[in-house]
């Protein structure tokens, strides 16, 4: 049934916007005609010529985008109340709106491509590979073609990718407007369209679109702007944001963390896990934006800077707060959980366990699993960033100059290993102090200890939140010292585990 509706909507989109599409076609023909002279001068082939016309960002921004905004808003407003009540629910209605527009737009783009090819066919010869267009480095158009040629030697692939990206950008736009239309009404969707258009122009003419790439539509529509100008990390962020918006509008729900047992909900609930995941993602995003703001697009530096920390020579308060947030935020949630368990200690679920020791062991296991999941997520994410980043990042160079040690992949994995062990040690320390005093004292005590480390550097034995700087400093002093520290931390953690587990079958 949906395919029939979509088909009729696609036809309606053509019929209802005849005048606008004719205007767009005329402008496209004008752009194609203007590009002919340049293409003839540089002896371009047919597909290079088609690429030259289709990636013209001035045509896209000043003609295609305003026309599409009008078409999309008209498309969304054309829904009558009678039609609305025929849909099963709002999600299905939005799905049909988005799919019909995307189908129509894809069809329209290929018609445009066909038109440009037909215009160029009498003059240019079809070419399989991109022509040699080096030499004129001052010509903006040729520079652009050069970048596309570096992206793919086959111009047809570049054309298809650019068109696909147009499709992605305009589908994102439709998804945003469709969401606003359904939540706030058609008047607000028109206002939003105007705001988006103004923001796009602002982003295009200023460097703001490079600093905050996800805010400006030009990065979602124009492929070379999204990838070549902003760099791969910004491009990936933009694509992920766009896909997120589209999936949200299509009614896709993210996978939820499965509820394992009632005890796990009482200790570290799914909500807590979601909050900490969002929190750590926020920290990574802040770090990423700082890097982009500084003009550094190397993702290896994101991994290094995120876990940089402080050491004897580099004592940054903000760096210390960041490393504290990374290390101690799981402990904060564990503290909340301990307090919650004390609050509900008379719950029947606790009586089901063989003994109090058994209950404590199970709770401890939940905490350890939570901390390991958290540390594992950060470890995998940062290691991936480090491996896929460029070798000669500014941070790597700075670290080499400071310590004389090249931060290689084994070094980084070693640091991540220390990070995971320290997280477990911190948990053991926190739980030990919690048992002797209480969780508030334990948390304040751990933060105070870390703060003393910042003020009085050099107490390496009590380093409870080491970053990369401290890791390299310890390596500089000798690998033996590092191994002793790891052994001590592991010893304390395992010792605590054994201590809690020793009487789990005792009958009291």
């Amino acid at each position, binding site marked *: 049934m949906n395919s029939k509706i979509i088909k009729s909507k696609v036809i309606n989109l053509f019929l209802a916007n005849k005048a606008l599409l004719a205007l767009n076609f005329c402008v496209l023909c004008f752009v194609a005609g203007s590009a002919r002279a340049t293409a003839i001068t540089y002896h371009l082939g047919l597909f290079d010529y088609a690429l030259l016309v289709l990636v013209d960002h001035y045509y896209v921004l000043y003609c295609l985008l305003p026309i599409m905004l009008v078409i999309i808003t008209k498309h969304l407003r054309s829904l009558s109340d009678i039609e609305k009540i025929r849909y099963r629910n709002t999600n299905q209605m939005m799905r049909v709106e988005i799919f019909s527009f995307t189908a129509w737009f894809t069809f329209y783009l290929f018609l445009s491509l066909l038109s440009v090819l037909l215009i160029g066919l009498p003059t240019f010869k079809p070419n399989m590979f991109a022509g040699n267009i080096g030499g004129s480095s001052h010509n903006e158009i040729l520079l652009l073609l050069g970048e596309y040629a570096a992206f793919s030697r086959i111009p047809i692939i570049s054309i298809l990718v650019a068109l696909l990206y147009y499709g992605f950008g305009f589908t994102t736009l439709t998804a945003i407007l469709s969401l606003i239309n359904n939540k706030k009404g058609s008047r607000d969707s028109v206002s939003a369209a105007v705001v988006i258009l103004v923001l796009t122009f602002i982003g295009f003419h200023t460097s703001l679109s490079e600093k905050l790439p996800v805010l400006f539509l030009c990065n979602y529509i124009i492929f070379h702007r999204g990838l070549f100008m902003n760099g791969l990390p910004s491009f990936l962020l933009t694509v992920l944001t766009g896909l997120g918006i589209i999936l949200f509008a299509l009614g896709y729900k993210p996978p939820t963390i499965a509820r394992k047992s009632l005890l796990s909900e009482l200790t570290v609930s799914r909500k807590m896990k979601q909050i900490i995941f969002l929190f750590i993602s926020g920290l990574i995003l*802040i770090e990423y934006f*700082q890097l982009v703001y500084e003009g550094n697009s190397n993702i290896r530096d994101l991994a290094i800077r995120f876990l940089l920390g402080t050491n004897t020579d580099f004592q940054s*308060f*903000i760096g210390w*707060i*960041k490393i504290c*947030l990374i290390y101690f935020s799981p402990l*904060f949630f564990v*503290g*909340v959980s*301990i*307090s*919650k368990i*004390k*609050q509900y200690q008379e719950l029947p679920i606790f009586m089901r366990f063989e003994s109090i020791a058994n209950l404590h062991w199970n709770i401890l296991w939940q905490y350890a699993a939570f901390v390991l999941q958290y540390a594992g997520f950060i470890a995998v994410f940062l290691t991936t960033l480090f491996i896929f980043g460029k070798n000669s990042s500014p941070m790597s160079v700075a670290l080499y100059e400071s310590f004389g040690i090249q931060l290689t992949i084994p070094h980084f994995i070693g640091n991540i290993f220390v990070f995971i062990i320290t997280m477990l040690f911190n948990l053991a320390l926190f739980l030990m102090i919690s048992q002797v005093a209480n*969780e*508030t004292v334990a*948390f*304040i005590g751990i933060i*105070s200890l870390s*703060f003393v480390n910042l*003020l009085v550097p050099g107490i390496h034995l009590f380093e409870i939140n080491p970053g990369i700087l401290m890791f390299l400093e310890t390596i500089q002093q000798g690998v033996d010292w590092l191994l002793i520290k790891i052994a001590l931390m592991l010893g304390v953690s395992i010792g605590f585990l054994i201590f809690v587990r020793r009487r789990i079958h005792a009958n009291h």
Partner: protein
Amino acid sequence: MHIIWKSTKRLSLAWLIATFVYTTALFFSINYSSKDSLVLYPIQPFIFGSEPVDLFFSLFTTIPFVWPIYFLRKDNFLEYVSMRIKLNKYLVFQAFASLALCFVMVLLVNFSGVLFSLRMANISTGVQGPILTGYILGEMQLLDPLKFGLLWSFYKAVIGLLICSLGIIFAYYVKNLFLMFLAPFALISLENFITGVTGLARFSFTTTYVLNRLSPSVMLPKNLLVGLSMFVGLTIVIQRALVHHEQQNY
């Protein structure tokens, strides 16, 4: 009056312990920081020494003073109180006792810190150091440190009242003891971090109570006012959110 007196008596031990810990930490920090630095003016040890302790300022101004309100609610005592006296009136008296003790503690500790700094400062003569004239009341910091110390302690005590008020709001609405104790500290630390990494430290709430924290060019009254207003706004938003949350759940 009787209720305020009883509440004050209940809080007195916590007040004594907090005052002792805060004073010891501040004196130790002043002593430690002045050992390795060149002291150029009498109030300098206090400026350097109070900065590390100020990280825990939100803990000193909440934990010792907000717990009675939490336990009054947790133990359902407030249900019985409402038969004898208006609940709001009773809560205001309780809050007043907490705020008054918090105010006195911050005032006393900081002023004694200034006195300690003036007494132990070993001024290095013949050395040209940075001048304080760019800071708010910079001249007074240099020439009349005692008067400035009193003014600063009073101002800081007022900031302490704001933080304590946030703590009281958490104590009344939040049921988790750990969260209730540490929420103001976590919020202020997070705000400090976010404003720090975004280059907006001049508008941070932390900047308002750390003496001469940033360079004189950004330590302007209007910037401090922005920080204070943001904190007051945040307190109001949190209070509304907690009330809304309670209404939704009960």
